[in-house]
């Protein structure tokens, strides 16, 4: 392979040496240090190959050995250059292209993060950006060891990280710290008390003496599982009571909805503003003269991928959507629908550990709007550990 490359770069010719003694020609060329390869014997001739530079020297040697040489095929770069000698633009373009490639390879084209689970990539990208690693940065001045240390000092969740610059691609490998599970290490005696009023449905006592039973009604602050227990000998002992006590509790949610609601929504009218992205530069691609007084923008960009490598060339599209503000009157049914939607959000985000036993929505109309009341019955854990002093 290397030999082929050398031959291509130096240029070679296939030729035929014809005469009475072609062997003599071979001997003379060999003695004069001329490299000859693939000699094929023919009748009163041989065909062989040699470097272009050597072929220029063998004229005298051929005369000495009384053979006539004739080129049959030309190979290599010198002939290609000679063919396109007059087209200087091609050479200039090629040279400029090579220089541009060398110049651009000194920038970071893409940053690839792997190994993150809890830490968001956006946060890590911002940390890297603060330390000088982002797309379009001159890569030769980067001290990756120092950057690794800085980021690890700043972000405690990172156990280990490695920044590798391969060509123009930055690969960031991260290992996150293992978080310690929370254990109740307290050894103080405590009672389990109710945090809400309700009716007990289930008791899971892990430690302590339950003082209520299923079906008992309890009030806020009442002891459910006692940390004070009597031994067989009649003595008292103090325990750290632990239990899960489920009870049906009532809860009321109120929501006020005005009769007239003003809201804005994104209309169907939109304008796409496309930008051609090259490293850190954005070049506008289309002319969009339309402007809205009130609009929302979404930006999304895509870079060109070749063989899993992100190139610094891409398209960034900013979509401006017109915001239309309208005022609508709310009917009673509509108010109930709004309240139902609000209840669902409340159940999902606030009461995600509780089970809904029943739900009743009532809408009352007043002068300003509607007052929606939702009566809930939840089944949830109402137990709470409350420490007590043994001197009490």
């Amino acid at each position, binding site marked *: 392979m290397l030999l082929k490359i050398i031959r291509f770069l130096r240029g070679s010719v296939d030729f035929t040496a014809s005469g009475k003694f072609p062997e003599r020609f071979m001997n003379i060329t060999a003695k004069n240090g001329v490299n000859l*390869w693939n000699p094929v014997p023919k009748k009163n001739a041989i065909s062989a190959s040699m470097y272009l530079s050597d072929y220029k020297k063998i004229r005298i040697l051929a005369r000495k050995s009384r053979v006539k040489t004739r080129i049959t095929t030309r190979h290599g770069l010198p002939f290609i250059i000679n063919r396109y000698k007059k087209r200087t633009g091609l050479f200039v373009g090629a040279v400029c292209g090579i220089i541009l490639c060398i110049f651009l390879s000194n920038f970071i084209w893409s940053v690839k993060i792997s190994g993150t689970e809890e830490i968001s990539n956006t946060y890590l990208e911002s940390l890297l950006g603060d330390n000088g690693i982002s797309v379009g940065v001159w890569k030769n001045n980067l001290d990756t060891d120092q950057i690794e240390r800085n980021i690890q000092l700043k972000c405690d969740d990172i156990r280990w990280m490695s920044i590798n610059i391969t060509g123009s691609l930055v690969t960031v490998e991260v290992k996150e710290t293992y978080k310690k599970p929370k254990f109740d290490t307290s050894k103080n005696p405590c009672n389990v008390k109710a945090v809400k009023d309700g009716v007990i449905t289930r008791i899971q006592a892990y430690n302590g003496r339950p003082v209520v039973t299923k079906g008992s009604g309890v009030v806020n602050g009442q002891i459910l599982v006692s940390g004070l227990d009597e031994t067989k000998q009649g003595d008292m002992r103090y325990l750290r009571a632990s239990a899960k006590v489920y009870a049906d509790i009532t809860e009321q949610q109120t929501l006020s909805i005005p009769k007239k609601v003003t809201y804005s929504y994104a209309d169907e009218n939109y304008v796409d503003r496309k930008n051609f992205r090259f490293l850190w530069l954005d070049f506008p691609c289309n002319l969009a003269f339309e402007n809205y007084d009130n609009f929302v923008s979404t930006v999304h960009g895509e870079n060109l991928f070749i063989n899993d490598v992100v190139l610094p060339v891409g398209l960034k599209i900013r979509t401006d959507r017109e915001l239309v503000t309208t005022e609508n009157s709310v009917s009673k049914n509509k108010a109930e629908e709004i309240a139902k939607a609000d209840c669902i959000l409340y159940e999902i985000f606030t009461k995600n550990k509780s089970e809904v036993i029943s739900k009743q929505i009532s809408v009352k109309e007043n002068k300003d709007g509607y007052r929606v009341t939702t009566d809930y019955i939840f089944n949830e854990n109402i137990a709470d550990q409350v420490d007590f002093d043994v001197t009490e």
Partner: protein
Amino acid sequence: MPKKKRIADKNERLPSPMFDMGTMPYIEMLGNRRITVEGSTGILLYDSESIKINTCKTVISFCGRGMTLKCISSSCVEIEGFVTDINFLS
């Protein structure tokens, strides 16, 4: 006291080689498919069925089929092909 013999004296008494090995051609064969001749002074005949190589002491003739010279330099020749016969012609 016995006189110590010099090592150089021992060497002087070693029998000298029968021939001058330095001028002999060195032939290396890989089966009958590839032959390297070191110490050649020129090619006398080059044909696909017969190749004659001149050396200092003798002319070596290789006969066979489809024989080609793979490499030629001032003192070394490499032959490739199916060699059936080797003759040393003085």
